[in-house]
């Protein structure tokens, strides 16, 4: 076994410091070392996006990155969506518009949508579809996810978060 590296990062606003083997994938680090199981694994070929997290403000597939690479980074997972006690407008949108069924893709979808709205607060339907094109959903057919993002976009424009 290769020697362990100390990884220091900030996740959902909290500083954490854990040693890990270099080959440990970021997704396993988050789920198993840090105990945040909201981030999921849906494939082994970097195709599904269920593992999407925000790394220094950008979406990445945490199954296609080593935890050591995230040393010093700031990460946000679904558990860290800013909420001030209530649901984030995106979470609310997914609930209102029935943007989830089994919920397995949902954390990744939320993170991708969050990043999309940061970059483009008022996206068109086509832009939303492109924005979530790295996230597969087997249940919803995406239509209500699109509506959920539109819901959040409106709500945030009205002075949500």
């Amino acid at each position: 076994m290769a020697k362990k590296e100390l990884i220091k990062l900030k996740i959902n606003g909290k500083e954490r410091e854990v040693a890990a083997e270099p080959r440990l994938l970021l997704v396993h680090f988050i789920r198993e070392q840090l105990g945040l199981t909201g981030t999921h694994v849906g494939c082994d070929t970097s195709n599904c996006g269920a593992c999407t997290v925000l790394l220094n403000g950008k979406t990445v597939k945490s199954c296609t990155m080593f935890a050591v690479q995230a040393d010093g980074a700031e990460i946000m997972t679904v558990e860290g969506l800013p909420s001030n006690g209530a649901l984030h407008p995106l979470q609310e949108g997914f609930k209102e518009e029935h943007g989830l069924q089994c919920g397995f893709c949902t954390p990744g979808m939320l993170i991708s949508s969050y990043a999309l709205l940061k970059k483009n607060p008022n996206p068109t339907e086509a832009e939303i579809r492109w924005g979530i094109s790295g996230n597969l959903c087997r249940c919803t057919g995406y239509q209500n996810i699109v509506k959920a993002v539109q819901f959040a976009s409106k709500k945030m424009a009205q002075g949500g978060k």
Partner: protein
Amino acid sequence: MHKTSVEISGMGHSMKRKEDSRFLQGRGNYVDDVNLPHMVYGHMVRSPYAHAKLKSINTEAAKKLPGVLAIITGEDLAKANLAWMPTLFFDKQMVLATGKVLFQAQEVAFVVAEDRYTAADAAELVEVEYEELPVLVDPHKAMDADAPILRDDREEKSNHIFHWEVGDKQATDKAFTESAVNAKVHAVFQRCHPAPLETCGCVADYNNATERLTIYLTSQAPHAHRTLFSIVGGIPEQNIRVVSPDIGGGFGNKVPIYPGYVCAVVASLTLGVPVKWIETRSENLQSTGFARDYHMTAELAADKTGKIKAMRVKTLADHGAFNAAAQPTKFPAGLFSVCTGSYDYPAAFCEVDGVYTNKAPGGIAYRCSFRITEAAYLIERAVDVLALDLKMDPAELRRKNYIQPAQFPYKTPLGWTYDSGKYEGALDKALGMVGYKEIRKEQEEKRKKGELMGIGISSFTEAVGAGPAHTFDIAGIKMFDSAEIRIHPTGKAICRMGTKSQGQGHETTYAQIVAQELGIPAKDVIIEEGDTDTAPYGLGTYASRSTPTSGAATAIAARKIREKAKKIAAFLLEASEEDLEWEPGKFFVKGAPGKAKTIQEIAFAAYTNIPPGLEAGLEAVNYYDPPNLTFPFGTYICVVDIDKGTGEIKVRRFIAVDDCGNVINPMIVEGQIHGGLTEGLAIAFMQLIDYDENGNVSGGSFMDYLIPTAVETPHWETGLTCTPSPHHPFGAKGVGESPNVGSPAAFVNAVVDALSHLGVKHIDMPITPWKVWNILKEKGITG
């Protein structure tokens, strides 16, 4: 049906889902989220060959790796008589290979280590020596004299599994000789896979102090699985607890029992610690329950006016290496004999032969009831071919042949009794939504300009809700399902069912049924499923059976509670029961609405002020055996545009008009339809699990087993008509599967329609751009 207030949110309200909050916050609890103290990990060693003698397995190097705890082989299992396990359909399947392997990715050894990474490393160190055997891939060659016999464990030395026929052959043949038109189509429904976003897996936790085995399992049928584990493993059933946690999609994939589960259980029994086994996506696609692989020929006999007289079907079914079809009917081809469709004609004959090949086992009911998708696809394809032969409009041909509303209950020539239907209503609504006349005109004009556009119709009839005990069982267990309702003193409730949601929203819809029947607000009703220690016995969720069975059981159990509540109300109001009237939420004295007792007051009294002669408490259980299946239906219309230069197909519009009887939650129904249509889209245009001549699987990962993204998925247009089921307690039919059953034919019919003027009558799925391009090239249209 009485529509309750929004506060109560009974049936018909688009109540927001109660289960969502945890999923939205990353707090769902899927099987890979289960972490137990001292838990270790399993990893499967799989065969690289499709057919090979297993000469030796050397585990020495792997065992030496620090952190490796155990390596289990087929020989080890054989000692405990566990090397084979029964499938759900009168066959058996190897847990770990002994003697030989029969498909690529077959389970050969199970490595257990302290962590996932070590287990993967050790699996690579297991040395297996194989001697390759001739491979059988083409099902059409399975019965050839020179075909290798795959299953030498069986008494019959043949690759033939079954021959099954149904219907009146003589009458059918006669109709064909007498008819003016005989339309024929050969259609392969390709091998595909349900591929829920979460793969299968389990955590087996044997506690040697209590002698209890708890299995956290991605199971669509936890109770049936408990019983099977008990029967096969010889563990007393009371000592097994199956917990099906949150499930990340099932679609039929999570009905069978897979070798990995058995290995994890054996490892936990051996090591006395919890063992987690989670399959990878590639393992999921390459080794667990595939669907379809039906090679079908259909013929329709009709007169010159287009009236259908008879149908004849011959099908070859590729079941892979073991007949692991997860299907509980008495018929080897399941409900395939609903292939006569939505049409009225007197004669039909259908025969199916099943064969073994060197492919992964399965034949599961992928988002449908046991071979219904194949059946619906076949008849809807055949009707379109008939329309082409007759030069008739496919909508008008369908209209001409529909079973009429007055004919229900309608007995089909192959023996099913459809409960209710108004097929023309759905057709007319769909034609109206798409603007059929105008769009046909547009097509005509485009054709003149050399542009390719097509319109495809599918008027399917589904059969769901397995099912009546006389026809359906799993290993002898009848296909009833159950509900148990307990009302707390404060008027809130907890209910448990024998089914198991995988995203369908049971925690909401069942609560709405209780709300409808008892007037307790749905938000005050907790639904629990999946824990065999607490939930009443049931057969699980697949085949759109939850609403038809557990949903019905919930209504009936609630009605039992209402009966008792009435007695308590009469006592509290000092009135006679006959003088009481019910409206959701309260009993009141006829003509004196002020004299009333709410269900909450009644619940409180059930524990505090019990009428003499009555038992305390307020609860009920029901086990519901449906008298028949329910038969949802609908008409789908697809409009496609084809790019002549590249063969690309764009779905411009898709209209889905569904009829699933009375609706519990319109929002959830619409969501189910969106999802099912998207799966249909993928099957029609993208998906195939294929094998080369050596039995090497392709399409075995998400790189090549394509799941459409939001970009390829069109904007679905949905509509409903409502024809209640006459035999269901609240007139509902299942809906989750209709879109997956009904849509493939609409997509294919649209593409064929776009090319029909070139003489094209059929294209097999998946209709990829290159297939279209090849046709255009051959016809000199492109290239």
